[in-house]
C-alpha cells in the first residue's frame, strides 16, 4: 500500500518547509524511522523521516523548493506498485500546522523512533485541544489498557504520545512522561490558535510558564533593542475620586482603629483588576512568560536613601482593613529596615504613589521581572467638564508603565479601565 509523504510540521510554529536535501533517491528502500530528507523549518534544519517501510518510488518536491505543511513531497510504496494515481493529488489529510499560541509540542528529535502506527509519535508531545494530530484512518495507536486508562484520566491524547513499547506501543511510562510535560506546559483555551495575545492561561494557583512564541520573542527583541533592557510604554488616565473620597470618609466614620488610606483603595483596586486581567499579572523570564495564579502587589516605599517594595500578598483576597493594617506595618518595617527578603520579593505587579508629595502624575520604572507598575499621583480638585459645564471634581491621575514584551497597549489599557472603574465606583470592589 503506497503512502504519501507530506511536509510535516517539524516545529510548533512551522507553516512551510524548504527541502534542503534528499537523503534517499527514487528506488531506494526505506525503513520506518529512516531519514528521507532534510527540511529547513522556521527554526532549524530538521529531518523528515519515513513512517513506514517500503521503496521511495517518487520524489515530488525538488531540492531547494519550499511548500506549505501538508503538501505532498514523495511517495513510498511497494517496488512494483502503481503509484501514478497518488502523484499530483493533494494529500488527503495534511497534518495540521502546530498552533503558534504557546503550544508546547516539541520539534521531532532527529532519528527518533517513528513507529508506523503513530504518524506523529516522533514528537513526544502532550496533546492540546487545538493541536490535533494528522488523522489517518488506517493507523491505530497501539497502547496498553493501563496506558489508555491513565491517558483518559490525565486528559492526554494518546495519538500524540510516543510509544516506547514493542511496535511503538504506548505504555504507562510514556503517558506519565507526556502527562508531566502537559502539566508544565500551559494548556490553551479553545480558539487560541495563532493568536499570541490570547494565549494567556488562567492559573488558579501557583503559576504557569508559557514558552515564548516566535512573535513574542520578536517583540521582546525588537522593543528591547529600541529603548533598553525593559521596553517600557506608558498609559495615563484620570480617575474621578469623588465616590472613593466619600467611601473613605464613611469608613473613617466607623471609628475603626485602622484608617484606610487612598493608597489602600488603589492597592485593592489594582489587585482585583489583576485577578481579572491575568495577562498583566506576569513576569518576563527571558525565554518565557510566567503567568501567576496569585496576586501579590508590591508597594513602593521611600526610605531614607532609596526605596524598597514590600509585598502585600494575596491582596485580591484581603479586605481593605487587612490591606490597610498590613501596608502600614510593612511601610514601618521598611523605614526601620526590618523587612525580611520574603517581605520584599515575589510581587507580581507594583504600585508607586507620590501623591502625598504633591506630584500630579509621573511615570514609574518597572521592577523586573514584573510586567507593570502603576504610578499614582495626588488627588486634587480639578476643573472637569460634566454635561457641558466646567465643574470642580476630585481626580487622580495614574500612569501605568508596561513591559511591552509581556503587555501590549490594549492589554494594559483594558486593565487600567478596570482599575478606573473600581475606584470611580468603590462598590464594584464588593463584587
Amino acid at each position, binding site marked *: 500500500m503506497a503512502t504519501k509523504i507530506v511536509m510535516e510540521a517539524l516545529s510548533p510554529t512551522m507553516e512551510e518547509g524548504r527541502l534542503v536535501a534528499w537523503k534517499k533517491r527514487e528506488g531506494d528502500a526505506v525503513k520506518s524511522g529512516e531519514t528521507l530528507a532534510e527540511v529547513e523549518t522556521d527554526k532549524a534544519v530538521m529531518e523528515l523521516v519515513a513512517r513506514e517501510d517500503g521503496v521511495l518510488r517518487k520524489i515530488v518536491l525538488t531540492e531547494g523548493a519550499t511548500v506549505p505543511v501538508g503538501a505532498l513531497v514523495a511517495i513510498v510504496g511497494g517496488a512494483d506498485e502503481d503509484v501514478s494515481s497518488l502523484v499530483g493529488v493533494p494529500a488527503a489529510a495534511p497534518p495540521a500546522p502546530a498552533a503558534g499560541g504557546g503550544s508546547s509540542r516539541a520539534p521531532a528529535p532527529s532519528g527518533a523512533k517513528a513507529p508506523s502506527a503513530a504518524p506523529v509519535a516522533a514528537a513526544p508531545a502532550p496533546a492540546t485541544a487545538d493541536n490535533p494530530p494528522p488523522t489517518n484512518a488506517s493507523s491505530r495507536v497501539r497502547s496498553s*489498557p*493501563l496506558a489508555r486508562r491513565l491517558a483518559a484520566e490525565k486528559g492526554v491524547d494518546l495519538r500524540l504520545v510516543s510509544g516506547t513499547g*514493542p511496535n511503538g506501543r504506548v505504555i504507562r511510562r510514556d503517558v506519565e512522561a507526556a502527562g508531566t510535560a502537559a502539566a508544565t506546559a500551559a494548556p490553551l483555551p479553545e480558539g487560541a490558535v495563532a493568536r499570541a495575545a490570547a494565549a494567556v492561561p488562567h492559573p488558579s494557583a501557583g503559576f504557569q510558564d508559557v514558552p515564548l512564541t516566535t512573535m513574542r520573542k520578536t517583540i521582546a527583541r525588537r522593543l528591547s533593542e529600541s529603548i533598553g533592557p525593559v521596553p517600557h510604554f506608558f498609559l495615563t488616565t484620570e480617575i474621578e475620586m469623588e465616590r472613593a473620597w466619600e467611601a473613605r470618609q464613611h469608613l473613617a466614620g466607623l471609628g475603626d482603629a485602622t484608617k484606610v488610606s487612598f493608597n489602600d483603595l488603589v492597592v485593592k483596586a489594582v489587585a482585583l483588576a489583576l485577578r481579572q486581567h491575568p495577562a498583566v499579572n506576569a513576569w518576563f523570564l527571558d525565554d518565557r512568560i510566567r503567568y501567576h495564579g496569585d496576586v501579590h502587589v508590591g508597594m513602593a516605599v521611600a526610605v531614607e536613601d532609596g526605596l524598597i517594595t514590600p509585598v502585600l500578598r494575596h491582596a485580591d483576597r484581603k479586605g481593605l482593613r487587612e490591606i490597610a493594617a498590613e501596608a502600614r506595618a510593612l511601610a514601618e518595617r521598611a523605614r526601620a529596615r526590618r523587612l525580611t527578603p520574603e517581605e520584599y520579593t515575589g510581587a507580581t505587579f507594583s504600585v508607586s504613589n507620590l501623591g502625598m508629595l504633591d506630584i500630579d502624575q509621573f511615570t514609574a520604572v518597572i521592577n523586573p521581572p514584573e510586567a507593570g507598575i502603576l504610578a499614582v499621583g495626588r488627588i486634587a480638585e480639578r476643573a472637569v467638564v460634566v454635561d457641558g459645564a466646567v465643574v470642580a471634581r476630585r481626580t487622580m491621575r495614574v500612569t501605568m508603565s508596561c513591559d511591552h514584551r509581556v503587555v501590549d497597549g490594549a492589554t494594559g489599557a483594558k486593565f487600567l479601565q478596570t482599575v478606573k472603574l473600581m475606584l470611580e465606583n468603590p462598590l464594584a470592589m464588593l463584587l
Partner: protein
Amino acid sequence: MALLSYRDALNQALREEMARDPNVFLMGEEVGVYQGAYKVSRGLLEEFGPMRVVDTPITELGFAGVGVGAAMAGLRPVIEFMTWNFALLAIDQVVNSAAKMLYMSGGQVPIPIVFRGPGGAALMLAAQHSQSFEAWYAHVPGLKVVTPATPADAKGLLKSAIRDNNPVVFIEGEMMYNQKGEVPDGEHIVPLGVADVKREGTDVTLVAHAKMVAVALKAAEELAKEGVSAEVIDPRTLRPLDLPAIVASVRKTNRCVVVEEGWPFAGIGAQVVDGLQRDAFDDLDAPVLRVTGADVPMPYNRQLEKLAKPDAAKVVAAAKKVLYLG
C-alpha cells in the same frame, strides 16, 4: 514455630487428623509397613494400627474405588498415590466417581476423600514419570485441587483437605519432601481457596504454585538486584482459585508473569491469564506472560530436562519483558 520438613509437616497433619477423627484412614501402596514410599506415613501404622493404615496391592484403580466407596459409607479416606503419574490408572474413580457423586445423588452423598501424592518432575525420571497433572484435575467440576509449596502450607492445607466434605486432589512434590520450613505450633489450619503473598513487591506479579514458588522467589531475588520489586503470589489452591488476590496484586503492579511446571496448552497459567484479562484489563501495562514446562514429553537427558523445566532465569527474562526492560 518448629522447623519441619515438608514430609514431616504432612506426617503431622495426618497424625493430628487421624487422632482427631476416627473416621479418617490412610490407604495406598507401601503406606504401612514400609512407612510410605517417601516416608510421609512414618509411625502411623504403629500408632493407629492396620485398620486405619492400609497397605494395598499395586492396583490404583482398585484402591481408589475402595476409597470412594468408603467415603460413600461415611468414612474420610486419605488415598496415597505413590506418584500422580500412577494415578492415571485411577483417574476414572477420581473424575467419574468421586467428583460426580454429590451431584448425581442430588446432594445426598458427599465424598469427603483426599487423593494425595507427589506430582511433577523430580530428576531424570523420564517422560512417563515427570508430569504435572494439576491442570487436568482443576478442569473438573466437583474436585478441589491443592498444591502446597511450603511445609507450613502442606500441613495446614492437608488438615483442611481432610476436613473438607468434597473430594480433594492434593499434589505434593518429590523434590520438596526434604525442604524445611517453619511450621506454626499447635493447631495450624490453612483454608482452601486462599492465596498467599510469598513476597511483597510493586513492579511485577509472579504467580506460581508448588515447586515453582521457590523458582519465582529466586527470580524475585535476581530481579531485586536489578532494582525490580517483584511480588510472588502463591494461589496454594488451584480450584477454587483465589483470583481476587491475584487481581489485587496485578492492580498494584500492572504486570504479571505466571509460572507453572506443567505444559503450556490449557494450563493453570492460561486460567490465570483469562481471569486477569477480564478482571484486571484496565490495569495491565503489558500482556501477561507465562513460563511453563516445554511443550514436549520430559526428556530423560539431564541437560535437556533442565532446558525443558522453568527456572529462575526464564522467569527473570519474562519479567523484564513485561517491564519493557532490555
